Structure formats: C-alpha cells, structure tokens
C-alpha cells in the first residue's frame, strides 16, 4: 500500500489555502509598478495562466491517456462567456469599486466561465470520447476550430474584430489562486478513486472495463473538469489582456499547451507546471539574451533576438531527442520523493 493513501486529508486542502494566504500578502507588492517590473509581472501572469492550462490538459492527456487537442477552444468559451458577462452586467467602473466587490465579480466570472466551458466539454466529450488515439485528437482539434469559427461569426461578441474594453479584473492573486486550485485538484485527484480509475483507463481500457470501471463515465468527467479549468484560464486571460480575438484561440495555441505538457513529462503535474513555465519563459529569455551576452563580452555575428523562434523550435526538437519522456519523465516532485532523493544521496556519500 503506497504511503500517500494514508496522508492526512486535511493537509491535502490546507496547503493550497496556505498558498492563497501567501498570494494575498504578496499581491500588493507584486502588483506595484514601482517595486516590481511590469514586464516581469506580465511573464509571471502568463506563466500562471499557462500553468492552469497545461495542468488541466494533463488530467485528460496524462492521467486518462486520451489525446485531446482542443484545449484552446474551451479556453475561448470561458474567455468569451466571462468577458461578455462582465461587460454587459458590470456597469460600475473598476476604480469606483471596493476590493470586495471586485473579488465578487471575479469569482462570478470565473464560476460562469468554468460552467460554460465545462458544459461545452461535456457536449464535445460525450460523443467523441468513444474514439481512440489519433481519431480523438483530430476530432477535438476539429471541435476547437469549429468553436473558434463560430465565435468569429457571432457579431454580438465582436466577431472577427475581437472583443475589447474588458475590465482588467485579473490580478496576480487571482492567477495564483486558480493555479494553486488547479494543481491541488490535479494532485488530489490522483490519490482518489476517480484518479486511480483514470490511470486504469490509460494503462488498459479493456482490462479496466472488464473490472467494472465505468470507463466512458470517468473519461467524460475528467474531460469536463479539464475543460472547465481551461475555461477559467480563459477568463483570467480575457480579464488580464482586456482584449480578446477569436484567433488568439486557434489550434496553434492548443498545440502550444500540448507541448508544455509533454516537454514537462506527460502524466506528471510537476512536469506540467515546469513545462508551462519553461515554454512561457523561453522566448522571453531568448529575446533578452543579446543584452546578457553583450554584458559578458561574448560577441555574436548576429542578434539572437531575430532567431529566437528558430532557436526555440530547435531546442524543442533537441529536448525531445535527449529526454524523450520529458523533463520529469512522469515523476512527481513531492516531500516523499525529495526525502528519497536525499536519502539516496547520503547513502551514496557513505558508500
């Protein structure tokens, strides 16, 4: 019996709360333009949103082993629903609101976006999760594109012009809170009956079914959960950038999220977090690499900045050739694994 099944259930949900408290304290400092660079803040915010996306996609692709490629579509549903909601219902300007009121609006928008995207996930998942492997991949990709083109054709939400003038409700706290919630959900899910059932489906669907696991039911619920979280990420995204366009959610973004999951290591929540941070940071690091190199007096015949996307794609290929199972290779970072690592090292030192 693995030890973590006996882990006290209070701690499972206590640590996210502790993180929330920390975020609440840190929020004013980090959001202050004078004390924290807005450029860095932007990278942090986008990393946070990407963490929500990749961790939630990992639930379907990594845990349940169902290859879904339509995550951006659900993100779009969440973004547009919540943006339309706050734009049409919220009439007081943001600066005239108390912090409590703002929080209430944000929570409302998040819940609504989660519900809408979750419902779409159910609509898409119900029929398509009967399909296997690459067929499921192309159908989810197709649904993502259909959602995008539908949005392009609805004039009330801007159509091909995009939707602008969304209130900037998203703060550092909210991004962190949703990310912490997503990570906690994903970690705790694996220890639950539901999570074990998903793993069984991934390992061998026929065997799982013959043991009485309702494979379709579990797959669909995982899909709905994942879509709902993607919708919330969309809500954060819309209320952070204050402008959304249907083409921000096309299949290239779905592919980007999949890249995050696999670069980190499919099936590992830690990996999904790492992958999201790396894929968000990498282009920015390459953008700034020239300054660093110039400071270090390393002359280059060209500017790295101009070639950053080429370098990015080369690094991606190289990483997969060197570590085919991703950075974490399916392993998780936890207190237990850290302890094991230290024990092994001290044993190595003694030997």
């Amino acid at each position: 019996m693995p030890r973590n099944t006996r882990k006290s259930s209070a701690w499972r949900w206590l640590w996210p709360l502790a993180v929330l408290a920390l975020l609440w304290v840190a929020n004013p400092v980090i959001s202050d333009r004078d004390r924290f660079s807005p450029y860095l803040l932007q990278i942090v915010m986008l990393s946070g949103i990407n963490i929500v996306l990749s961790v939630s996609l990992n639930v379907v692709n990594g845990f349940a082993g169902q290859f879904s490629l339509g995550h951006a579509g659900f993100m779009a549903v969440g973004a547009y629903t919540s943006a339309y909601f706050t734009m049409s219902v919220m009439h007081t300007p943001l600066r005239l609101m108390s912090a409590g009121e703002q929080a209430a609006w944000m929570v409302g928008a998040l819940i609504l976006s989660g519900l809408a995207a979750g419902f779409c996930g159910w609509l898409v998942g119900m029929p398509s999760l009967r399909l296997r492997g690459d067929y499921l991949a192309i159908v989810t990709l197709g649904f993502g594109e259909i959602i995008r083109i539908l949005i392009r054709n609805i004039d009330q939400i801007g159509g091909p012009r995009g939707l602008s003038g969304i209130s900037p409700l998203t703060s550092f706290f909210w991004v962190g809170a949703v990310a912490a919630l997503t990570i906690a959900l994903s970690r705790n899910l694996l220890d639950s009956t539901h999570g074990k059932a998903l793993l069984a489906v991934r390992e061998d669907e026929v065997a799982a079914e013959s043991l009485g696991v309702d494979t379709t039911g579990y797959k669909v619920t995982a899909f709905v959960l994942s879509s709902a979280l993607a919708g919330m990420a969309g809500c954060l995204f819309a209320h952070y950038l204050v402008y959304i366009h249907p083409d921000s959610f096309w299949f290239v973004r779905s592919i980007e999220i999949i890249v995050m999951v696999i670069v980190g290591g499919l099936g590992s929540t830690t990996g999904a977090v790492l992958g999201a941070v790396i894929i968000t940071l990498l282009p920015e690091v390459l953008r700034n690499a020239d300054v660093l190199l110039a400071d270090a007096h390393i002359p280059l015949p060209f500017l790295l900045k101009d070639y950053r996307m080429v370098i990015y794609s080369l690094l991606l290929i190289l990483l997969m050739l060197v570590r085919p199972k991703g950075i974490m290779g399916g392993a998780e970072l936890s207190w237990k694994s850290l302890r094991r690592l230290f024990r092994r090292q001290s044993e190595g030192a003694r030997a």
Partner: protein
Amino acid sequence: MEELLQQIFIGIVRGGVYALIALGYTMVYGVLRLINFAHGDVYMMGAFFAYYTALKLGVKAATLPGQLTVMAAAMVGCAVLGVVIERLAYKPVRKAPRLTALITAIGVSLLLENGGQIVFGPNTQPFPEIVPVRQVARLGSITVTNQQVLILVSCLGLMLLLQFFVHRTKMGKAMRAVSYDRDAASLMGINTDSVISVTFAIGSALAGAAGVLLAIYDPTIDPLMGLLPGLKAFAAAVLGGIGSIPGAMFGGLFLGMAETLVAGSKLFSSYRDAIAFAVLVIVLLVKPTGIFGTGAVEKV
C-alpha cells in the same frame, strides 16, 4: 444549378490538391503511426522551391521544359527535405513514446515556419505566372481553364503512379508489409529503415507537387501557407480512414467539394474553414475509423 455544377468542378480541382497532401499524411501514418505535423510545411517548402527555380529560369519558366523543371525541382527538393527530416528528427525517437515523435514533428513544423520567415521573408509574395490562365473549354455551363486541367491531370497521374508503385513494385510490397506489421516485416528481412525513408520521400514529393499546383492556381505564397491546407489534408486523411491510400484520395476530394460548396453559398460562406472539421466530426461519430479505415482488431 449551373453555378452549382461550376462550384462542384472547382471543388474537385481543389480537392485533388488536398488529396495529394493527404496521401503523404496517410502513408507516413501507415508505416510509422506518426501524425507528421510538419507535412503542411513541406508543402509550403515545395511552393518556395518552385518559386526560386521559376525566378532563376526567368521567362523560360513559362515554356514546357521550364514548367517541368519547376515541378521537378519542387518534388525532388521536398523528397530530400522529407528524408532529412525523418533521419534527423523522427528516427532517433522511434522507440520513445509515440507522443514524443509528435512533439518533434511540431518542432520541425515550427522550425520550417520560422526559418522560412527569416530566409524567405515574412510577407506574401506573388508566384510567377508560369502557366498563364486561359479558358480551354466549356462543358455545357461549366468553364474550364487550362490550370484546372493541369491540376486534375497531374493529380490523377500522380495518384495512378502511386497506386502502381504501391501495388506493383517490390518496394511497394515492402511498404505494405511494414505498414501491416513493422516487426514482422523486419524479421522477414525487409530493411524497414529504407522503406520508411522511401515513404517519406514519396509523401513529401507529393506534397511538393501539391504546393506547386496550388501556387499556380492561387498565385500567392508565404511561409505560413502550409498551416491550414496541412490541417485540412490531415482531416481528409482521417476522414477517409488514416493509413488507407484510397481513403486519402476520397477524403481530399470530398472535403474540397464540401468546402467550395459552402464557400459558394451565400448564407454560410464565412464558415468555409469550419466545414472540413464539421464533416469530419459527423463522419467519425458515425464510423469511428473513417470511411475506408479498417478497425484494428483488439487482442485481449
């Protein structure tokens, strides 16, 4: 009615090109079980190989030997490119989990797109007029141009050649064997590595031909032009049943027609890019392995 027939005809022309791209997807999937995400970009490279060859030839590009040179340059260039991609990016991860190869494929696709934007420039460029358009026939109410005839004849010819190759040559037989069971084929003394390379070469050459044909028809090219046709061709391959060569041909023609019909209708024209996926979703929900696909027998 007349307009409908005309639309169907244009759809067949466009569908032929999609089918050529879809063939590459389906062949690679057949032997490697890999969705070659970079295939749409190989198609783009074909158009650019043709572009530079045509520029080099100047006015001579519009003569018959010139046209053949342009076509040959694109097909050979793409075939070499396909084999290089396979050797460098896919072969080393053949034993790794399947999704790893998918990510390297995405990496190659990004590399070609972003590299293309640096080497060729990011802007849309006009493709030289190597086959000046002229109306050659009227079948009842349908207008037929020489470009459309060229595309139809080329697609048909290439598909017949492919059928001959796959079913009548030794290499084709080996390819079918590898696609049926790679390990068993290798135990029977088939050099699977060279079969896979040949598959990539042929699939990429077909994509290159498609790139030239579509560039002649819609004479603008840019480094991102492969994205959407690549995706639609992939949808076509899955629609027909991925791994099946007749399936890819059928899927391409079907999607091409569906798309032009929707684009031509007054009510739904803005849904043009969605129709390929809508058709795909409906077909797969009814027949989960595509129209010509055979469901894998599941061993328990």
